[in-house]
């Protein structure tokens, strides 16, 4: 279960576990209604996440697509160095903001 924080127009979702195939369906089901609410900003906080696979990337992209439809912003924060490299390789950073974990 992800930790979900709503603060005004911003929604923050923190999965707190690796975003991979085995949890993707549940994660998608958590994100779908949140994206439909049409938040101004949907933030995915990847603190503590060490691995994101292609299915996980698929969930992020589907959510980005949905949020963008209602002109919302989609941001991924606290991305580990390795995952940041993966997102850049897959050119995700050209479509939404990806922020690496500090330090």
């Amino acid at each position, binding site marked *: 279960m992800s930790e979900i924080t709503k603060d005004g127009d911003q929604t923050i979702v923190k999965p707190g576990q690796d975003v991979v*195939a*085995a949890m993707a369906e549940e994660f998608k089901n958590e994100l779908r209604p949140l994206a439909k609410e049409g938040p101004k900003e949907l933030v995915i906080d990847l603190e503590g996440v060490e*691995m994101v*696979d*292609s299915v996980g990337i*698929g*969930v992020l992209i589907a959510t980005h*697509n949905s949020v963008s439809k209602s002109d919302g912003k989609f941001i991924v924060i606290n991305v580990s160095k390795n995952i940041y490299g993966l997102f850049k*390789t*897959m050119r995700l950073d050209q479509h939404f903001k990806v922020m690496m974990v500090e330090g």
Partner: protein
Amino acid sequence: MFEVSRGLIDLDMSFSSTVENIDRVDEEAMKFLARMGIEAEVFCIRLAVREGLLNAVNHGCCGDPNKIIKCGMRLKDNAVFVEINDGGCGFDWAAYMGKELKTFTSDSGRGLAIMRKYCTDIEYNTKGSRLFLRKEIGDRKVCANRVRKQGDIVVIKPGQDIVASMAEEFRHEIEPLMKECPSVVVIDLAGVEMVDSAGIGVLLSARTCANDSGSKLIVINASEDVCGVFKAIGLDQLFNLLSA
């Protein structure tokens, strides 16, 4: 079902085709890579294995949990080799190979691109039921630095007494590196105050391995007491002993 067999420099697993088992393979792979002293390439290997397994589960076995997937990993020639066999109808790699992702907004179809980016080599058999991955690795650290490989030199530095209670584990740390035929093997006995018969057994087997592979073996920093033991049983004739 999930079966695992952990060898000295290899790992073999057989399991039902489910996405949950991908997490278990990943866990075993992580432990295996740690045992082999691989650090820098861990993320790349784990990610590539996950993607290979996803294709096997979703395409090769068509999501049928009654089908069995086999996954093997081994360390050889400074590279990690991975083989994934789904025993099913295979993954139609030809349909994806060489194709760039059509659009960014597509939420699938990235697995092959990731494997190609993160591995040195990737190859499917024609049927697509067998995947071979190879990832070259750099220098390794083995088991809390007790055994280190720097280029062509292996440094064995136990930093503790070489005695029965640790001998077997220590032997397992040394053997895989000796098999890679380093040109020089240094046994650094700094901090070693006691070597018992089990410990001597490990050092002798390291010497035999070194002889077999034509490696030069040097023992350094042996304390006066340890030197005394070596001399008393004639080991100073067998080892190139440089005292502290």
